[in-house]
């Protein structure tokens, strides 16, 4: 009941906010000769995917794709984000390209695009992807994964959990003892995701650096992998972790009754897993068919059913961009695919940011 009220409120907020960030769904238009592309893809017979994905999600996507295209075998390579990057640039240099589709975090993907490792492809599904989720007709956002707060329900209650970024600052400042050593976030020094979230917070939140100082004062913890956060909040070693990947956190909370998840009310940043076709891949036609399927309603539904929220508005399974926006009080702020993400790889930008992070944290 409460949940549906929340959703109703969220939907109202969307309408009121007249969101500039989320465009209305458009129909996909497949060209008349699309069957020829599929035939060529079937002739290739397989498609190789490089992606750091949880097995449940890759399996869902593979099964859905195979149901539609049984003649195209999907070879999934589940490797870490860093290993994916290394593999793509190394294989290209050796002339031994082994992947057809890369599917990874947005900043690294755009960096690879800027280095020339992707080929342009105007997908017939492109019209259904929001404008902020498309990059130069090459790379496409496929998911919307919000930064949320995850907390331990057994040891603390929802009313003690901050709902906005400013409340987060106040909470740590005013109840320092209660939170000492019990609050955590991703480490921007060790984790690319951590850098992405923190850097984006700096842009969106005027008091970000004041907050970092307070976070340091209460002995805020930093970790570099989602699994560490899950175990530490689950067990009560941490009371709360913020800027967790909400896609994972929501799935975990379904299975673990003592995990609570809430999104910020003032703004909820979100990143998208980005897909592109790898240059010189051995199965270029199958890659196109696969990318189209990833963006299609069918493909999006399969992946979002398995946990990763869809970037499309018409998936309607309780886990698409509209649902995430409702969860965020209509204040969803997707990280747009653009030059900013690539510029943030500039060593000077990063070291300056991280030096300040360490300074404010008092490390």
């Amino acid at each position, binding site marked *: 009941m409460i949940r549906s009220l929340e959703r109703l409120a969220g939907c109202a907020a969307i309408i009121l906010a007249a969101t500039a960030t989320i465009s209305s769904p458009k129909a996909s238009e497949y060209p008349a000769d699309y069957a020829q592309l599929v035939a060529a893809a079937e002739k290739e017979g397989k498609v190789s995917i490089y992606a*750091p*994905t*949880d*097995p*449940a999600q890759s*399996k869902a996507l593979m099964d859905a794709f195979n149901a539609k295209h049984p003649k195209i075998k999907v070879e*999934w*390579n*589940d*490797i*870490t*984000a*860093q*290993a994916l*990057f*290394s*593999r793509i640039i*190394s294989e290209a*240099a*050796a002339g*031994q390209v*082994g992947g057809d589709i890369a599917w990874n975090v947005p*900043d*690294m993907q755009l*960096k690879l695009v800027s280095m020339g490792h992707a080929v342009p492809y105007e997908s017939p599904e492109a019209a259904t992807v929001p404008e902020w989720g498309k990059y130069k007709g090459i790379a496409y956002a496929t998911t919307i994964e919000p930064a949320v707060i995850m907390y*331990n329900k*057994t*040891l603390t209650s929802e009313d003690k959990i901050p709902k906005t970024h400013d409340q987060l600052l106040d909470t740590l400042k005013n109840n320092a003892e209660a939170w000492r050593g019990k609050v955590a976030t991703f*480490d921007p*020094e*060790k984790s*690319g995701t*951590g*850098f992405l979230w923190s850097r984006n917070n700096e842009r969106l939140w005027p008091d970000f650096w004041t907050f970092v100082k307070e976070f340091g004062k209460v002995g805020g913890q930093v*970790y*570099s*992998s*989602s*699994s*560490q956060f*899950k*175990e530490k909040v*689950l*067990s*009560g*070693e941490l009371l709360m972790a913020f800027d967790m990947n909400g896609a*994972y956190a929501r799935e*975990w909370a379904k*299975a*673990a*009754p*003592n*995990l609570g998840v809430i999104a910020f009310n003032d703004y909820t940043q979100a990143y998208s897993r980005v897909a592109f076709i790898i240059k010189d891949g051995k199965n270029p036609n199958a890659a196109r068919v696969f990318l189209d399927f990833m963006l299609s309603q069918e493909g999006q539904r399969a992946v979002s059913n398995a946990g990763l929220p869809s970037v499309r508005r018409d998936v309607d399974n309780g886990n698409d961009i509209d649902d995430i926006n409702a969860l965020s009080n209509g204040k969803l702020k997707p990280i747009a695919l653009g030059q900013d993400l690539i510029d*943030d*790889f500039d*060593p000077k930008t*990063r*070291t300056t940011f*991280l030096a300040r992070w360490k300074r404010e944290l008092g*490390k």
Partner: protein
Amino acid sequence: MARATEAIIFRGTVVAALAAAVLAPVGLIIYQSFLSGPFFDPTATVGWDAFGFIFTDPDFYSAFGVTVIFAIGVVAIAVPLGAALAFLLTRTDLIGRKILEPLALVPMFLSAIVLGFGYTVSLGPSGLVSLGAERIFGFVPWNIYGLGGLILFGGLTHVPHVYLYASAAMRNIASDMEEAARTTGAGIWQVAWHVTWPLTFPALIFASMLNVLLAFESFGLPLILGDPAGTVVLTTYIYKLTALLGVPSYQLMAAVAVVLLALTFPLVFIQRRLLAQSRRYVTVGGKGARATRIHLGPTMQCVALAGVALWLLLAVVFPIGGIVVRAFVSAWGRGINIFEHLTLDNFRQLLIVPALARSLTNTVILAVVGGAIAVGAYLLVALAGHRWRGRFSSAIDYLVLLPKALPGLVVGLSFFWVFLFVPALQPLRPTLISLLIAYTIVGLSYGFRMIQANLLQVSPDLEEAARTAGATTGQTWRSVVVPIIRPGLIGAWTMMIIVFLREYATGVYLMTNGTEVLGSMIVSMIAGGSVDMIAALSFISIVFTLGGFVLALRLGVRVNE
């Protein structure tokens, strides 16, 4: 004359092959450390930039210091305990030693990441044991995070690495030497100190070196036990360097790896000096004499058993117990009654993913078949170096330890490059053979040394006798030396099965669709947070290894003899 030529050709071929296999990946890392970008990037220039960066970074020095302290701590704990354990289990009549023998190796079954998770679940701030202790004391009387915890658990879980080499050496000591000491009125500890210890010395020296290297390249434990307290060692510092620039900066990673490598040379040099007179330690003579065991009185039995039990509790029961519990629950920790959250879902999830099922099969094939092939290769290398006083004999000692001196993830990346950029090797990359070759090189320091230690104990008298009878070097090896050390070879095989089962870093870059391996799959999954599946996979890998062990015992293989 013909005999000498035969030996030279054999030795030359083996050493050249070994050098190629080891130096290709290691050399590539060294080369990479002197470049300004990836080695395959045509715009990369040669220079000292990478070293300039790390040598002016205060974090590097602190990580370096912590690494050295960690390594010393691990050796200080693992070597005495491992030697004592080996002595008790091989040379005394300790009650229950038959059961304890395989148990003593169990911490080796687990990759460090899995061990770390196990400790978090049992002894972490909200661990099951910690919460029990809290009920008694009102607070948790320990903190596993930080350098102290890292050294303690690093040391305790490396005991098997010492036990294995020490027990292999001790088993081969003909008991007439100890008997002789006993009949002249020496007590147990006098025998241990004056007879057993000096004879075990080479094995312990090697075990110490190995532990220093293992501590240097250790990644999983520092990540899980060090990170929460901000304790950074060189391998986790590499991790940080990677994220610092957002994309992997190979030259910085390589520069840190080269620093670690540079530390290895003095270690191996010291080791060689200490073992210079290895002839002193010949213990298997022509006269066969099997061991009789030293009798322990009731008090000694109790003390010894209590010590072993405490160690087993800390190094086996707590981490494995943690994993087992975690594999069967959906929630745990403070305020949670785990019995309300028992589930089999974690395993059900595994069944539906083909890559995971494949990774189980691949891992078993690599461990069992690959382990045997690796032992064959190590035997050839050990024979090539056996009784060789040639100019290049020392090269083998260095070559063998080089791959172990480098962080596993860096070596894994380098092997990936070797198989990618060497045209002749390209067809092997998507097959298990590439992983087998990489695993064989990475495992060199484990398996080769076991075989070498066995060879060292074969008296030259036996070989000379065969030669006098007209046998060639090859015939002597085939008919005399190899049959004598056969138990050692089987022990080495068991060892390689374990090492290959739990290996995780080497495959992270090399594995591809169809060649997934368990350990590397776990590494890939950690970032995503499928902890439920990771726990279930870890549980399965423990069951596999234990199953393999029980089978080996049933088939009459005497473990590590």
